[in-house]
């Protein structure tokens, strides 16, 4: 009997101590982590959207933690302890079958895109393996006043009627768009107007040419890769956009203009409500000034200006830097 007390009782006592030291105490201590500057609690609608996110297990495929590693820079700055002050349950996740969503509200701010993508991801990203969340939407004959029907491409639209988001979809969208990393105090330089050459995002590490020789060192494969990573979700791999939703780059006057300044400024600062060939596009395009280095922006612009039958004048990183210096 004594031996049983030792094995069962003794080991359980040891384990209880370890559970307190390794589980409970760090839990208590870290639960008191103060919110970082600019880290706000969610609004009721955003919180409701977070519940939809949890109910449908979004975090089994999408992380919400950016590691201090080069390959994570595309998702934002490294996550800081203060970022999680209002995040219970935590949604850091363990797998990236899909991309990290820590900063998705900045990286993809277009409501239209988010709705189309939720309804059926393959409508905008043909290779996606994400489930269609079409059951968060409903088909009605006519969108009620104040509600915009989801601008689905023909192949994905219902044969009759229009698709409108349910309350759940609206909440989820509101939550996704709320996912924005506030700048850290010591992060100001990085997100400021000028991107120092030494702190270029990882994608530009491979760029041997550097800022001055963007045109000479133009690598078509890398250019395409940058375009796919940053632009194709809306403008599509073939540059034709989505009719009436996201403007085409193929044959776009701005892209073919000999004066590239509008093109450069659009990529740097984003755009909304532009008129391309008589169609007004309401969806916002995010700014890339804080995301991409000048050389990468030049590479992307040159890719767009030489693809799909376009023949705009090429640009250099110096031109991009000059436009960047002018400010918004």
């Amino acid at each position: 009997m004594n031996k049983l007390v030792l094995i069962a009782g003794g080991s359980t006592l040891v384990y209880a101590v370890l559970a307190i030291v390794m589980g409970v105490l760090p839990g208590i201590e870290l639960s008191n982590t103060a919110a970082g500057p600019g880290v706000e609690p969610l609004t009721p609608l955003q919180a409701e959207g977070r519940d939809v996110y949890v109910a449908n297990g979004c975090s089994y495929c999408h992380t919400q933690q950016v590691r201090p590693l080069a390959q994570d820079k595309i998702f934002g700055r490294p996550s800081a302890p203060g970022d999680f002050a209002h995040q219970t349950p935590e949604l850091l996740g363990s797998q990236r079958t899909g991309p990290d969503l820590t900063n998705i509200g900045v990286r993809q701010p277009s409501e239209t895109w988010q709705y189309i993508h939720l309804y059926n991801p393959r409508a905008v990203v043909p290779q996606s393996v994400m489930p269609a969340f079409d059951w968060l939407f409903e088909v009605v004959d006519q969108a009620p006043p104040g509600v915009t029907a989801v601008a689905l491409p023909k192949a994905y639209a219902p044969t009759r009627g229009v698709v409108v988001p349910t309350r759940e979809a609206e909440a989820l969208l509101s939550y996704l768009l709320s996912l924005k990393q506030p700048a850290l105090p010591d992060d100001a330089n990085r997100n400021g107007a000028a991107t120092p050459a030494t702190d270029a995002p990882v994608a530009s590490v491979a760029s041997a040419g550097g800022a001055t020789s963007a045109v000479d060192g133009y690598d078509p494969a890398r250019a395409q890769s940058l375009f796919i990573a940053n632009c194709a979700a809306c403008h599509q791999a073939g540059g034709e956009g989505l009719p009436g939703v996201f403007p085409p780059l193929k044959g776009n006057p701005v892209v073919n203009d000999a004066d590239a300044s509008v093109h450069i400024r659009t990529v740097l600062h984003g755009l909304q409500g532009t008129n391309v060939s008589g169609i007004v596009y309401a969806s916002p395009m995010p700014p890339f000034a804080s995301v991409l280095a000048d050389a990468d922006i030049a590479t992307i612009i040159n890719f767009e200006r030489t693809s799909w039958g376009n023949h705009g004048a090429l640009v250099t990183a110096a031109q991009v830097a000059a436009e960047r210096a002018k400010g918004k």
Partner: protein
Amino acid sequence: MSRTLSTTTQQPQQKEKDARALVAMLAAYSASATFWLLFATGVGTLLAFKLGAPDFGGGAWLTFGRLRPIHTNATFYGWASIALVGLALYVAARSSRTPLFSVKLAWIGLVLFNLAAVAGTVALDLGYNDGNLEYREWPWPIRLIFLAALIVTAWNLVGTVARRTTGDIYLSNWYTVGGVLWTCIIAVVAVLPWYQHGLGQVSVSGFYMHNAVGMWFTPLALGIFYYALPKLLSRPIYSYALGVFAFWTNLVFYPIIGAHHFLFSPLPWWLQTTAIVFSVAMLVPVLGGSANFLLTMGGRVRTRAHSYPLRFIFVGVIGYLVGSTQGTFEAFRSLQEVWHFTNFTVGHSHLTMYGFVTFAIWGGIYALLPLASGKEPGQLGLALHFWMALVGSFIYVIALSIGGTLQGLDWIHGLPFIQSVVDMQSYYVWRGVGGALMFLSHIVFAWNVWRMTYGRAGDAPSQMPSLPGEVAT
């Protein structure tokens, strides 16, 4: 007056009644666990298929994010927990040469385990997910049902071992009694909400998700090894002392490694580094335990190579050794940079939960259930089950290890994210092929369990050595 007379005549009858009750308990736990294995891996196969055909099986109830936790939780708390508890109770009674402390408690435990698993499955499918916190997704009232099942089981196990008629406590019971008691603590730590907010909850998640695996499935599966191996080989375990040493080192090192699930996260760096150091220390109990099993088998494997229970256990031991060692390497920052967040981790979790724990359970059931019920499965069924499960899991783990590595390298090379999705496609197909084979083998296993319990016995020769008696005690 006639009382003394009747007790003496009733003694053998009572003994037989106890034995029958023990067999009925083991049969019910095994059958119930088998149902959960079929269900959980059926869902897993559908999930694998969905990665290749994401529009197949639409609607909220069949969406990937609801089915994935159903797959993992049903595997953990339906299949593995129920099967391991059934075996642990049986081993406790047999190795202590005593009836179960309470047959009734064993049945209550079985009902509670099933109640929790059914309720948890339904809740997750309806979207009641307690925060996507891995392996504790069931809403908390349901996790309390599971905790109640654990407490009932712990009570029963301790009570049974306390009543032992043998002098020593057999090694298996160290592991199973310890495992159940520790898991009660884990379950309480995980379910209490007051101290888990934001980053604090992240650290508890790291602690919980590794302890739920390593302080529950590992000790119970090792308990099976320590009992079934000596029985199958008709020789004592190579070193009792080594088993005790592995017990205490496992107990002290394992609880510290949880934060290695959150390397490079905003958790304190010292917590992550401590976890890495103790992940290396885990090699001590892992190598010690594996060596003990392999040395026990040494020299006998060839003469008893036809024994399928032994084959299952052999694969289980190798799965323990390779899977745990792989876990240590994965904890290094340099390798995490490549493998974290990729499918490599999914391969690792299947190597351990399948290659180690599930094969250990199968070895245990095939070794002990026929011994208890007197019914053997069919020879063909054994062969089909073993080879399909082995080949299937090989394909599965290798496909995800290669695919996961490519995924991680794609990210490091700065390719567009979608490229890593495209590059996984062919490996998802191979995972589906491996998974389908594994699932087929489970159907055969169910057939085998049926023949060992309620159905007509099969034609397999007895797997036990001709020497009768409790070698293990």
